[in-house]
């Protein structure tokens, strides 16, 4: 990314999500958006957004079909910025109870069904309570409402990555982050001002990452993913 230019965000298109709204949301906060349906299209992007609706097992199948699993893993392991949204958040974890799917294994833990939920799916606006301060939520008041549509949520094995929780019958993890990898269970692109602010914060984090990693070649693959410390 050239200083002063718009951050270039690649939205991963694996046929399991409607990309219209997230594209509009990112454009509204000043991103240049490309849709990446194949690994080559990720090159040149400053950050990756992994959207997704539907079931984890079919999402993984679609990712595999398009040869996107390893490029996505490499991207994250190289420490490059990535934001997972809804199902795109859930598949960052090791596995999902939804269809007993093995998922990307980039964050520790598994995705489980919401328990004790008064209604399922959990659809609508709900309050997001901070577990710790995080730049993704800069300028967003604790307890702000975001829009959710889901029946499952990740249960991280490491409490340290939890950024926020939301209560629907009992609390579940609504946002998590480790390094430059971020994930939210809600839909920022449908969450009005609070959601746009979160997307704008993400762009700022991307920008900061780009500034500190100017020497990293674009499209670089991690030399040895196995050497990555989980």
């Amino acid at each position, binding site marked *: 990314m050239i200083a002063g230019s718009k951050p270039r965000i690649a939205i991963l298109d694996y046929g399991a999500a*409607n990309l*219209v*709204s997230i594209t*509009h*949301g990112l*454009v*509204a906060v000043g991103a240049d958006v490309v849709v990446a349906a194949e690994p080559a299209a990720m090159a040149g992007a400053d950050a990756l957004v992994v959207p997704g*609706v*539907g079931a984890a097992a079919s999402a993984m199948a679609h990712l595999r079909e398009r040869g996107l699993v390893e490029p996505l893993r490499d991207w994250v392991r190289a420490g490059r910025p990535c934001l997972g949204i809804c199902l795109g958040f859930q598949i960052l974890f090791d596995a999902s109870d939804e269809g007993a799917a093995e998922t990307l294994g980039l964050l520790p833990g598994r995705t489980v069904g919401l328990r004790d939920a008064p*209604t*399922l*799916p*959990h*659809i*609508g*606006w*709900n*309050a997001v309570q901070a577990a710790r301060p995080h730049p993704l939520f800069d*300028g*967003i*008041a604790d*307890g*702000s*409402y975001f*829009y959710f*549509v889901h029946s499952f949520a990740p249960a991280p094995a490491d409490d340290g990555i939890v950024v926020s929780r939301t*209560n*629907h019958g009992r609390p579940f993890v609504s946002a998590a982050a480790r390094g430059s990898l971020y994930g939210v269970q809600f839909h920022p*692109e*449908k*969450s*009005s*001002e*609070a*959601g*746009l*602010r979160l997307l704008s914060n993400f762009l700022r984090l991307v920008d900061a990452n780009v500034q500190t990693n100017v020497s990293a070649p674009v499209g670089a693959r991690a030399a040895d993913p196995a050497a990555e410390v989980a």
Partner: protein
Amino acid sequence: MLARRVIPCLDVDKGRVVKGTRFVNLTDEGDPAELAERYAREGADEIVFLDITAAHEGRATMLDVVRRTAGRAFVPLTVGGGVRSVDEMRDVLRAGADKVSFNTAAVAAPELLTACAGRFGSQAVVCAIDARRLPRTEGAAQTWEVVTHGGRRATDLDAVSWALRAVELGAGELLVTSMDRDGTQSGFDTELLAAIASRVRVPVIASGGASGPADFVAAVCDGKADAVLAASIFHRRMYSIASVKAAMAAAGLPVRPVAEAVA
């Protein structure tokens, strides 16, 4: 805790917002995308477009409206009216809508709900039910009949039974309109709402008859509705979304505050 939603509904005819008394005396009220954006800014939790364009050629115009709205109003968008197939629903979702509402088309072909839910998920399928009170027989419970074609045509369907069936078929949400109250500003039919909401697990949206903030409170407290929809009281600027939400909050209902606490 999930917030109770406040939803302004916009009637759209040939790409323009119109208002009138249920399909007659329509007057042009402006651009749907612009009005949707304004409502979203004013705190609407969701926007509903009801396409009342009679001619089938109006479809392309509506898709354009949805496309323009999706780029400006960053809240969930539901589109109702005129969608009769999985492919038509796909087009509306691809244009940027989150949900599609089926009314007459679902009564005519109930399997449409199943087909669309199977393809896009129940969360995207809303069944709109227009109901009219039937004369109460001595000693029997109140019943309601489903009407279609904007209330012009009666069916033999019992509204509560149809609601249960629609959920079984795949509807993820029910938009329940009282045709006795619609356009009358005499309050929601809370008896109808409660009769349905107490028997289904999916969210029920109350519609038809809002005259002021107290009616929104009653729709949730007495009618057990999860969301409340209104058209004219917002369009005519009689009440703001903020004033409705303030009344709901004062009644102890969880609502998303309008003055979004963003620095």
